[in-house]
């Protein structure tokens, strides 16, 4: 029954996937509560431009997606603070520009071993040992930072004006949230792909919102949903030979429907 555990790559992907999905759910609650849900899509598409540039230059992608993602995150932050820019519309601009740059770079590049597709759809089963270390250490550090500033971040996403009236240095927390989200989205490209990373940040939070009574409750529930979907998705993909990311998102969406039914027929 548990024969899939004999494969190192499956065990590795289960470990990374679990850590990844727990953190995605945690961070996702701050993004959804703070109405920043479509920011993750914008960041992921713009990091793809980094992948494209890496492919164009040859010699691997490296930290380029992280650089591009941070660039997009901070431009959104500074432009929307300085002007009356509509954040949502600006997100679309950055998103399209990112994708356009990615396609442009890939098209211009001489033949390459790295494929853009890996970063569009992710490839959790082919994660290397060094990638495991990089992803895990980032997630643990980011978890620490968010937990340490938890109370202020809750204030920031629910009522920034109130937080500002109590506490002058609010920008710092805004920047922390922006930087953590940007880096996290960029490193997710290899795991779940640029097109699907938002699903991990948002769907489980949406499901948890149907039945939760507090922010903490919502965090715990969404972590549970994400973990369940990731583990079962990886196992399903192993046995039925379907793409892992798709399998995970099917389970996530199934859970969302179940929470809707639960809310409609059980809770009320």
């Amino acid at each position, binding site marked *: 029954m548990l024969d899939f555990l004999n494969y190192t790559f499956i065990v590795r992907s289960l470990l990374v996937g679990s850590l990844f999905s727990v953190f995605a759910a945690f961070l996702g609650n701050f993004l959804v509560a703070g109405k920043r849900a479509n920011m993750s899509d914008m960041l992921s598409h713009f990091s793809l431009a980094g992948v494209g540039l890496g492919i164009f230059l040859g010699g691997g992608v490296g930290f380029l997606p992280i650089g591009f993602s941070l660039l997009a995150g901070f431009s959104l932050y500074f432009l929307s603070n300085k002007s009356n820019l509509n954040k949502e519309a600006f997100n679309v601009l950055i998103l399209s520009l990112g994708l356009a740059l990615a396609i442009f770079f890939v098209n211009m590049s001489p033949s390459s071993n790295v494929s853009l597709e890996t970063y569009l759809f992710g490839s959790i089963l082919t994660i290397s040992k060094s990638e495991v270390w990089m992803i895990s250490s980032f997630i643990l550090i980011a978890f620490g930072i968010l937990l340490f500033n938890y109370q*202020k971040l809750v204030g920031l996403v629910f*009522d920034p004006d109130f937080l*500002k*009236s109590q506490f002058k240095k609010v920008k710092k927390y805004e920047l922390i949230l922006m930087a953590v989200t940007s880096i996290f989205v960029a490193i997710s490209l290899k795991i779940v792909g640029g097109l699907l990373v938002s699903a991990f940040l948002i769907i489980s939070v949406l499901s948890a*919102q149907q039945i939760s009574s507090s922010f903490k409750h919502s965090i715990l529930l969404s972590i549970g949903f994400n973990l369940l979907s990731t583990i079962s998705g990886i196992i399903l993909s192993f046995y039925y030979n379907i793409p892992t990311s798709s399998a995970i998102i099917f389970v996530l969406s199934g859970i969302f429907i179940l929470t809707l039914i639960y809310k409609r027929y059980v809770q009320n």
Partner: protein
Amino acid sequence: MSEIKIENLNLKFGSKTILEDINLEIGVGEYVGLIGPNGAGKSSLLKCILGLMSPSSGKITIHDNMKFSYVPQYFLGETGFSISVLEVISMGLANKSIFNKSQNLNDINSALKKVDLKQSVLKENFLNLSGGQKQRVVIARALVNNPNFLIFDEAFSNVDMTTKTKIYELLARINREDNTTILFVSHEVDTIIQKCKRVICLNKHLHEGCHPIKFMEGKLQKIDNIPVRINKIHHHHNHEKC
């Protein structure tokens, strides 16, 4: 002693003037009502005082030991996210260490007591509360850090009259018993007149000492038995007859 002193404050967005030549002093323990029609700049003035907005010119001097708190007009609109009452009130403690749990819980309980809410409400989802309960929770959040200056931006659209009266009484009690200075902003002139010791009328400029009801009706006549203090003499304009 004044807690806050505003001198020659102007606020402009592009070519649009929001606030012009505002001069205002509020002393310790005062209960001041601020009224004005929609778009008069009430919320902008509050935001300048709270430091959420920087005035285009002018000066705001705030007493050193002042601890502001704020009850905003809107909190968690229709697209609200689940959050418990405990979590809402805890936002008022963002300055405090999270490791001091028992002290924080004491502060939360005494804030709950002030707004007449039971401890059992702490676990409830804020979104499921009635309008009146929500308003009390948001007041508790503002009081939990023991402020000495409370700014209350009224939004009572979905609160019935009985609840409103209770909240007015609650504010009066906080003002009386804790000597908390209150700046109360409202559209409802009648209540302001009844509850506040001092009323300021705002419509871009300040009109202090004019009759609030007449002011809100758009009739800016001088009332004989109330001393008039005109903050802005505006030529060729009926403001001078505040």
